C-alpha cells in the first residue's frame, strides 16, 4: 500500500531546466531535467521510494507522473518542487485571482509512489491534453 502525502507544490527554475530550455524541449535532456520532482530525503523515506522511481502528483487541476530526484535544496519536508515546464503545468490551475498571474507556487497537492509509472515526453504530454 503506497503512502499518500499531503504536500505543498512549488514550481520554478533550475540550471539544468534552464540549459535544456533553449531548443531542447523536444529532447530527452528536457524530460530528464523537467519531468522530475525534487523531494526532501525525509519525504522520500515516508513515500518508500528512492531516487529514479516514479511518483504521481495530484492537485485539484490534474495529475502527472514524474521521476524522483533527491533535493539538493533541502531541508524542505512537506514541499515538493517541480521545475517549470509542461509537467509542472499539467497540475497548475489557470485562475489568476483577477491580476493575470496564475498560482505557480504554494499549491496543495498529494503525492504517492507509482511503481514503473509512465513518464510522457513533452510532445506526448501536450498532445494528449
Amino acid at each position, binding site marked *: 500500500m503506497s503512502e499518500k502525502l499531503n504536500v505543498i507544490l512549488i514550481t520554478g527554475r533550475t540550471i539544468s531546466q534552464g540549459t535544456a530550455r*533553449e531548443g531542447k524541449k523536444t529532447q530527452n535532456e528536457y524530460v530528464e531535467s523537467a519531468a522530475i520532482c525534487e523531494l526532501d530525503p525525509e519525504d522520500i523515506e515516508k513515500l518508500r521510494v528512492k531516487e529514479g522511481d516514479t511518483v504521481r502528483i495530484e492537485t485539484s487541476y490534474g495529475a502527472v507522473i514524474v521521476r524522483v530526484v533527491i533535493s539538493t535544496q533541502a531541508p524542505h519536508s512537506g514541499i515538493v518542487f517541480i521545475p517549470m515546464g509542461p509537467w509542472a503545468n499539467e497540475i497548475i490551475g489557470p485562475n489568476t485571482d483577477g491580476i493575470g498571474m496564475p498560482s505557480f507556487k504554494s499549491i496543495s497537492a498529494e503525492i504517492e509512489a507509482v511503481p514503473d509509472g509512465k513518464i510522457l515526453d513533452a510532445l506526448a504530454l*501536450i498532445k494528449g491534453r
Partner: protein
Amino acid sequence: MSKIITNVVCPYCGCLCDDLEVVIEGNKIVETECPCELGSGRFLDLDIATRIRESRIKVDEGFKEAKIDEAIERAAEILASARRPLIYGWSSTECDAIRVGIELAEEVGAIIDNTTSICHGPTILASQDVGISTCTLGEIKNRADLVIYWGCNPMQAHPRHLSRYTFFPRGFFREKGQDDRTLVVIDVRKTDTAKLAKHFLQVKPNYDYELISAFRLAIKGYQVPDSVGGISREKIEEIAKIMKESHFIVIFFGLGVTMSGAKNRNIDNVLSLTRDLHRFTKCVIMPMRGHYNVTGFNEVLTWETGFPYAVDFGRGHPKYNPGETSVIDVLLREEIDVALIIASDPIAHFPKEIAKSLMNVPIIVIDPYESLTTEVASIVIPSAVAGIEVDGTAYRMDHVPLRLRKILEPPEGILSDREILSRILENVKRLKGR
C-alpha cells in the same frame, strides 16, 4: 583562424553580463570564457539539431516547407483578418523587434503581452500602488552591507548575481567584499543560495505576507507574535535590528513571492517595508527579472503606449487592465482567434488549460529553435538569435540598457525577428489598404 571577441553581452538571464569572451572560428563559436552554465550553454549550443532551417506551413496532411516570403504573407493574411489576435512572447528578443511588434499589434488591434504577465506582473501592479525604491546593480556592489534574497534562488536562475554584483565582489565602500556584507536568505527551501547565507529564514509556504508585516512591526518597535510563518520572534527581532543598524540594505525578491499566496499584495507589503526602513537607513529593492530582455519589453511598451504589459489595442487606443487584458485571462476566456508567438514557448510554460486554449487557435511562431509551441503551430518562421546573430538593445534587470552584439552571421536565409515582423507588418498594411 580563430578570433577572440571580448565584452560580449550574454542574452540569457536578467543579469545581462557584458564581460563574456567568445572564441570564433570562421562562422562558428568554438569556446566561451564565461563562468556561468546558462550563458556558456547559450553560446556553445547555438547550432544544435533543433535549429529550424526552413519555414513551414500546416496543411491537411501535416506540414509543408515554405519559402519565407510565403510564410510571411500567409501570417499577414491571418493576422489582418483576425478579430481578436494575440501577440505574445518578446522576452528573448531585442528592442527594435519589439518596436515593430507593437506597431503590428496596433495595426491589427491585437492584445500584446510578454512573460511579465506570469513573472513580475504582480510586482508592477504593487509598484503602481505604493511605488518602489530601487537602484542600479553597481550601487549594490559599491554600497550594500546587508543583502537579502527573498523567494528567489539566484544560484540556479541568475548564477553570477552574487559574484558579479551583490555579495562577493569588492566595492568602493565595501573593500573587503563579502566580509563587509551580511547575507540573509528567506525561502521555503534551503536552496543553494540559502546555504551561503549567514541567516537563513525558512518561511512556511504562503506566509510571506505575514512575515513581511512582522518585520514592519518589529522595526518600529512593536511586539510581534511568538512565531510568524515558522520564524521565531527572536529571529525576526534579530534581523530587524540588523536592518536598522545597516547603512545600505538591498532586498532582491523573486517568484516565490509573486506567484504564491497574496501575490501582488506580498510585493505591496515588501515595497512598503523598504519605504518604512527609510525612517532609519537606506533601503532599496529589486525584482529578479528572469529573461534577458523582459525588462526591455516593459520599457519599450511603456514609452510607446503608456503601459508596461498586457496592452489591448482592440479599440484603437492602448487599454491596460491585467486580470482582463493579460495573456492568461484572455486565453482563459477563449477570446483569442489567432496568436503570434515570438521568442517564447507558452505551450511549455502556461498552465495546462491555458495551453489547451492556445492550441485551439491558429498559431504563428517566430523562433530559432523547435519548441513545444512550434510543434503545434500552423506557421513556423525561423529567426536569427538576438544577441549572437543579431544586434539590438536589451535592458538588464535594473534597467541598464546595453547593446547586444552580432558576432556571427545567421544561417543562410534566416532573418532577424525585426526583419520578419517588418515584412509581416508591411503585408498587413497592404492588405488593409494603407
